[in-house]
Structure formats: C-alpha cells, structure tokens
C-alpha cells in the first residue's frame, strides 16, 4: 500500500527527473508552465464589436437616412411612354390611333390571327372549358388539350417529346436554367434576344459571348476552354457546356450557320440549344424551322425552343427534343411548375393553326417569295439600309449614317414612321431596354412581311418608305 500513496507516485518520479535532467531543460519547461498558467488566467479579448453605437446614435441614423424615390420620374415625351393604341384586332388592316393602315408591324407571318377555322376551334374550346385553367400543370391544370398540343408539336417537329409553356418569354428563360447551373459554361451569340439573356442570368453560369455568326471566334473560345480543361481534368469532367443560338435572329434578321455549329458540337463535345421563335413556321419546306432549311437531322440538336406567338398566332411557347432532355423540365422548369397552365382556348387555337400549316405547305413558299420581293424593293433607299436575309420575314431598316446620338437617331426614325403611318402603312421601331441589353443593336424600323400582304401593298410600302426617307432624312 505504501508505495501507491499519491505522494509516492507523484513525488518520486519528479525527484528523479530533477536529478537527472539537464538544467536548461528544466528552465525551459518551467517557463512553458508559467506561460500556460498566464494564458489560462488572462482576460479573453473579443473581436471589436461591430456596433459601438449607442441606441440614441442608431435612432439618429435611422432618422437621417433618406432613400431614393421608388422610381425616378419619366419625362412626358419619352418615346416609349406613349403607346400606339390599336382599336380592334391587329390583323392585316389595322386601325392605329384612329387611322386605318396596312399592318407591317405584327408578327402574324402566316396570317392566322383572323383565320375563321382557328377562331371556331377556339370558340369550341371556350364553350367546353371556360377561359382559365385555375392551376399549374401539377395541380389539376393539365387538360387533354395540352396533352394533345404537346403530342402534335412533337410529331410535327419529328422529336420524341414536347413541353408547352404559357408565356413565350418564359419558355427559353426557364429552359436554360433547368440544365445549366453555377459553374457550367455557355457560349452564346452576341445578338441573342433578351429572353435568352435573362435565362442565362438566372442560371448563374459562366457566359462567353462570341461575335455574331463568327464561327472562327467561337472556335477560338472553345479551344481556349479546351486548354483550360487540360489544366484541371477533374473539374472538366463535371462542367457542362452549351452553345445557345437562334435560328433566325430577331435583332439582325439573319440565320445562324447551323452545319458548322454541328461540326463544332461533336468536335468539342458541347450541347446545342436552338431558339426558333422566328424561324418556326417560316423556314424549311414544311415550316419545321432551320433544321429542315439546312437538312440536318433533328436529333443532333439537343433542345429546340420556340414561341407560339409568331407563326402560330396564339400565346405561349414550347420546347421539343428527346424525352431524355425534355422530361427534366417537367420538374425543374420554373415557368412550367410554378405558373398556371395555358388557357385551353389558346391551346386549341394553336392545334388548329398547326393543322392549317400541315395541310397547306405551300404558304411557306408564298411567304418566302413576298420576303424576297420586299427585300429587293427596299434596296436603294437613300439614308436607310436593309438589315436581314432575303428570306427573313422580319427585317430591320437602320440609318446608313448615325447623326451622333442614339436619341437623335430614334427621333429621326420616329418621323419616318409617323410619315408612313399617316399615309396608311403601319410600322414600328424596334424597342429595346437600352440599359439592360448586353449588346444593344442600333435603332431601326421593323418591317414584317405576312402572307396576307398583296404585291400592290408591298410596292406601296416600299415607295412610301422611299418618300419618307427623302423628305425626312434629306
């Protein structure tokens, strides 16, 4: 027992250490022990508190703070403030601000806006379903018309599946963020429309802009990305890449070089998203869009998105492609899951419009002939240049020489438009949000060709524009 007394257990070894350890060792250990004791007993210091302010000072700060007004005042003569008022339907003959004109401003390419068959299909749907759907697709908002429209669109475009949205803008703006997330890379054309830009912003991915229709620039960016990948192969294996292009660009009126893009796709392993709002129902022998125009296998494009507000003269939009890709949007497309579905009468109108497109494939030839005619007629107007392909139904007329500031250009073009409107041709300027666009196009007048315009009307429009340019710009 005696050898296990605490004093024995503790004291003996210490005594041994003190006898046999060198002196400097003992001194070092002693200093260390004293330091630990000091640290244990010294006052802990906190990081300086963020607010040393007293409550009274806080009150004063709150009193003094003045916010900006919610919105800055808009000058009364701002060009975008006073809308044109259209009385009656915006069809071929349109009444704008009380004056009857021929419509060269609405995207009613196939003239289906006042087609009697389309209207009666919509009427039948209205009698059966009422107007609204009162719910999103997941909660009793899926009607048999929606399912039928999706099937018909998939069959028309020859893809496996299609999904419809209730708003054209929301279609591509919800489709892109469903696939491309933070850390992924998207190569997008500079002239992409605003809806694509918002989709990209919502996706939080890395955006790389390449010059409009410049495949060399795109290849350069892709090569740069390839060298980056070789530095970090693990990251490269999980970073998705996409190219987003439009079939027929709204801002410039020309087409994207799709065959070269397909080659780049397989060479650099990037997926392609194609936005076909203007080219659906316009390009191609049967109106199937730019893939038919170039004769490309539709399975080579990963996703085609289009809105039904141009050729189909309805409201909403759709995406089509393989089931592997489209099915994902049914749970991750924000504009699909969290928004009410398309009113059935608009879906029925779109189905009937598709029927008409399938039954009369020669309207596409007629439309193309008219586009080429007006393209030719508008050449040679002094002061204005035509921007857009000869087969594009939506052209831009830009000033040949800018007069210094964008504001003055806009004013000048407005005078041209007013001259035409007073003489019976309804035109409009292309509208943009100047501060929000990534690459703001120059101000222009939009000229839209539809199948309903006769040759005399096309001639009249062209000569009127010549006259207007003469009187205003010279």
């Amino acid at each position, binding site marked *: 027992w005696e050898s296990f007394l605490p004093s024995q257990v503790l004291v003996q070894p210490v005594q041994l250490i003190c006898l046999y350890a060198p002196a400097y060792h003992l001194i070092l250990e002693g200093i260390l022990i004293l330091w630990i004791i000091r640290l244990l007993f010294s006052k802990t210091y906190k990081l300086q508190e963020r607010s040393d302010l007293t409550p009274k000072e806080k009150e004063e700060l709150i009193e003094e703070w003045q916010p900006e007004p919610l919105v800055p005042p808009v000058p009364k003569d701002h060009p975008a403030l006073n809308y044109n008022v259209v009385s009656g*339907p915006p069809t071929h003959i349109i009444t704008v601000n009380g004056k009857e004109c021929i419509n060269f401003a609405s995207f009613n390419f196939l003239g289906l806006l006042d087609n009697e068959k389309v209207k009666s299909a919509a009427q039948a749907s209205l*009698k059966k379903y009422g107007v609204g759907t009162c719910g999103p697709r997941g909660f009793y908002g899926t009607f048999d018309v929606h399912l039928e429209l999706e099937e018909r669109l998939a069959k028309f475009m020859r893809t496996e599946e299609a999904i419809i949205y209730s708003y054209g803008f929301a279609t591509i703006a919800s489709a892109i963020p469903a696939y491309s997330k933070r850390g992924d890379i998207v190569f997008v054309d500079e002239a992409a429309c605003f809806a694509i830009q918002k989709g990209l912003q919502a996706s939080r991915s890395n955006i790389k802009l390449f010059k409009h229709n410049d495949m060399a620039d795109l290849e350069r960016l892709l090569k740069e990305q390839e060298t980056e990948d070789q530095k970090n192969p693990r990251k490269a294996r999980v970073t998705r890449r996409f190219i987003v292009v439009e079939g027929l660009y709204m801002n410039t009126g020309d087409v994207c070089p799709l065959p070269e893009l397909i080659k780049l796709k397989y060479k650099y392993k990037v997926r392609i998203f194609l936005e076909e709002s203007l080219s659906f129902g316009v390009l191609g022998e049967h109106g199937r869009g730019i893939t038919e125009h170039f004769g490309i296998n539709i399975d080579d494009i990963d996703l085609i998105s289009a809105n039904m507000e141009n050729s189909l003269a309805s409201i909403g939009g759709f995406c089509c492609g393989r089931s592997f890709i489209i099915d994902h949007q049914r*749970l991750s497309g*924000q504009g699909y899951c969290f928004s009410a579905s398309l009113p059935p009468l608009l879906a029925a*109108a779109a189905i009937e419009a598709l029927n008409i497109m399938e039954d009369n494939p020669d309207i596409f030839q007629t439309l193309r002939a008219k586009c080429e005619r007006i393209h030719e007629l508008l050449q040679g107007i002094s002061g204005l240049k035509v921007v857009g392909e000869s087969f594009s139904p939506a052209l831009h007329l830009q000033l040949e020489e800018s007069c210094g500031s964008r504001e003055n250009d806009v004013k000048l073009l407005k005078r041209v438009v007013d001259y035409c409107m007073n003489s019976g041709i309804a035109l409009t300027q292309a509208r943009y949000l100047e501060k929000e666009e990534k690459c703001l196009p120059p101000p222009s007048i939009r000229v839209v060709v539809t199948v309903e315009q006769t040759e005399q009307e096309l001639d009249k429009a062209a000569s009127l524009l010549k006259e207007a340019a003469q009187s205003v710009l010279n």
Partner: protein
Amino acid sequence: MKNINAMLNCTKLVTLNHIVHNGGLYKRPFNEAFEETPMLVAVLTYVGYGVLTLFGYLRDFMRQWKIEKCQNATEREEQKDFVPLYQDFENFYNRNLYMRIRDSWNRPICSVPGAKVDMMERVSHDYNWTFTYTGRVIKDIINMGSYNYLGFAQKAGTCQEAAAKVLSQYGAGVCSTRQEMGNLDKHEELEKLVARFLGVESAMAYGMGFATNSMNIPALVGKGCLILSDELNHASLVLGARLSGATIRIFKHNNMQSLEKLLKDAIVHGQPRTRRPWKKILILVEGIYSMEGSIVRLPEVIALKKKYKSYLYLDEAHSIGALGPSGRGVVEYFGLSPEDVDVMMGTFTKSFGAAGGYIGGKKELIDYLRTYSHSAVYATSLSPPVVEQIITSMKCIMGEDGTNVGKARVQQLAENTRYFRRRLKEMGFIIYGNEDSPVVPLMLYMPAKIGAFGREMLKRNIGVVVVGFPATPIIESRARFCLSAAHTKEMLDTALKEINEVGDLLQLKYSRHRLVPLLDRPFDETTYEETED
C-alpha cells in the same frame, strides 16, 4: 406519467389576439395557428424517409448491376462521351421517392375546372414509370384542388359569352409586344378598370403572373438596393429578386420582430463592407401564403415600413378576390388604405378565372413600368378573350353589372372557409394557417400517407392536392384544400364525410388540442392552459 405524456405529446398552440396588444393596429381578431408536430409523428416520419432512402440505394445498386431493368430515358449513343447532363445524385429523389407516388400529380382533366370536374382515367402497369389512358372518364369529382375561389371558372354565363364575342372579333393572339403594335384598346380598358377596382391611381396588366414578378422587380430595384423577403415567398418573387442584382436578406415567416431587426441593422450599418447607405429598401410579402394558409400581418408591416422609410411590394396572387368584404384583397380585409402599399401586385388566374398578372400603384410608378418593364418591351401582351373574361368578372365582383352575384360569391366563400376549417379542426386534424384563409393545409407528415391520401380520396370521387418535399420542409408534407364559392354546403359535407373516413383509415387525426366548438369568448393565455390535458 403526466410528465412522459407531456413530453411525448408536446404541443404548443400559438394563437394571437391583437385587439389587446399592438395599440389597436388590428381592427379584427387575427387567429393564426401552426400546431407543433407531435414528437412521435416526427420520429416516425424520419424513419419512413430513412427506409425509403435505403430501398432507393438498393434499387440503384440493382439497376447499376443490371439485375433490374432501367426504365429511365438515356443519352444518345453518339453523345455518350459528352459531360453528363444530370448529376446522378440530383435525380435520386426523383427516381426513388417521387416516382412511387407520381400519380398524385399532373392528373389530366377534361372539363371546366369548376366545383366538379371530369378526370381522364389513367393506369400504370410499371409502377408509375409510364401511364396509359384507358379512355374512360371519371365524372363529377369534387374539385378541391383548383384555384377557383370565386367560382368564375364556368363554361356558360355572362363572362363566357362576352369572351366568345371578343374572340370572334379580335382573334386569339396578339403577335406583338405592348410597346410596338400590341397595345389594344381592350388593354387600356382593362387597366383603367383594375385601377378602379383596387382603389389606386393607375395599373398595368401583363400576360403571365409568374413573369409579372420576375420581370418587374428587376426594373424597380438594382445594385445597391436591399430586398427584405419573407422566408416562404413564392418562386417568382425569389427569381425576380435574384435577377435584380440587389442584396437579399430573409426574415422569418410573418415574424415582425425579425423584420424590424433587419431593417434597423440595414439602415444603421449600410451596405456590407463599403458602409455606404442603401439606395432603397424593398419589402416583399405575399397576401396569402399558399403553402401555409397564413395571412401577412399587414398593419404591422405598414407601420414598420413607414417608420423605416422603406417600400412595400405586396403579392396578392391568392388574396385578391378571396379576402375582404367586397373581394378587394388583404388591404380591405384589414381596413387599410391602398395608398400605403407602394406596389400592389396580383394575378388574374385565381379569383377571376383567367390568366395574367397586374401591378397597381401611383401614376409615376406605372409610367415608369410602362417605359422600363421587361415585359412591356419584349413580351407579347394579353390575349383579347382573356382580357374580356377579366373585365366581365371584375365588373361582376364590383357589382357594376347590375346584379348581386359578385357580393354573394364573396360572402359564400367566406362562409365556406369558416365552416370547412371549423369542421376539420373539430374532427381532430392539424390544420395550418389563418381562420379566414380559403387555402386549408391539412398535415400528413409521413411520406407513405402522401400517396395514400391522394389515392383514397380519388377512390371516393374527391380530387385533392398533396404536396411534399421540396415544396415544403421534409417532414411537413400536407394536403391542401382550396375552397371555392362554387362549392355548395352539400358538396362540402360530402367532402368532410370522406375526409373523416380517410382520416380514420390512415390515422391522420394528430391534433392534441381539440377545439371546443363555437367558442365565443376571445382567446388569451388562460384558454391555452384550460384545454391542454
């Protein structure tokens, strides 16, 4: 014994009566209740999810080793060496949990979504991977899932006739944007009417409710501004806030102390790191929160907004037409002035039986939005027959069509709400939310009950909406009933009888706090002590 009981069945009923407190801000009792999850139920729910996850891993393993056939769609052969489009793990929940009860959602209907609806029958022979339609139609299902608060989803009547007339005159589409050639006289008429309905200076209408939020919040605030957003705000508000580029701070759901603390901190400390003062502060709240059934504490929010000089954006998607003695929304419900709310936003989908959204406010605000809203510049305007439906239904609610139909419907909805909620609480279910909200969430908790509830109710010819993760927190899955003025008392009684039966079958009556029916005296702390046993 009593202690263990109290521990196992710990419940706290939080009811607030602000007539006494808060200096008379509230002119009527504000009764909101969120009964706490019983401990045993929470444990069992976690166990349920655990079992499902284990089975999920097992099935994935079997699919990977080809023991079980993989029924997912797959990538093209030519693109197999591309970077995979989806992370395998992201889809784990989709493949293994959602797929089992997928038949509760996306149910296709083939009639007008009124009080009774016809559904297309669909069956699945491979456990919900694919569906086939048998061709039969299940008729006259009581519809407790569509947002049809005032019963304007009708296929006959003045609204439908007016819409038909406009359709034959104008056509279905518009083919242009508001600023270009898409501004019809119908739109101007609609906007004047909406401004009159809300009691504001001016209003603007848009084609999609979701897009109204996501395209106009970025036009109002930008970098250097602060957005204070409620925890449970809708996806469109969250997307709009993110797209604006402003700093976002979140306050606890409907919690005014949390909001005040954030406001104070924001003004006192300014922007993070640079300490510059904020340009403006915008508070985003909703009128009725559709997953909780709670109503925003508007009087307190307005008092805070005035004290701290910030701006209020009120999203009345579910509350316009559904609250208030004449259907003017949550502002009228609390007896406040619409001038106090800076931006009044709402949708036409729910109470007006149409589609689209609107924003109302002062003339400067609407002029600014006409010029700078993304939707006015780049998106197509509303379709004319839809506009006519809104105009007719709004005039009906306001009483301007010469009948009492609108007022009768608003009153019917309020009566239906009170009756339905009271009966459900008496039966012993846990019901969330405010007494006056026509959105009634009934708690289910366990994952298996989500699918079972939906299917059992459908067998009894009642269509309900069930929601689970990720729309709600993982253990708080629920069934949500949306009441309508078109529901008659017989329909509600039938529904209640069936809910009672299914509740007993699935053991859903979790509530420990049984409400004494027809309690006339106001609630305060003493009531709580009395009824807890």
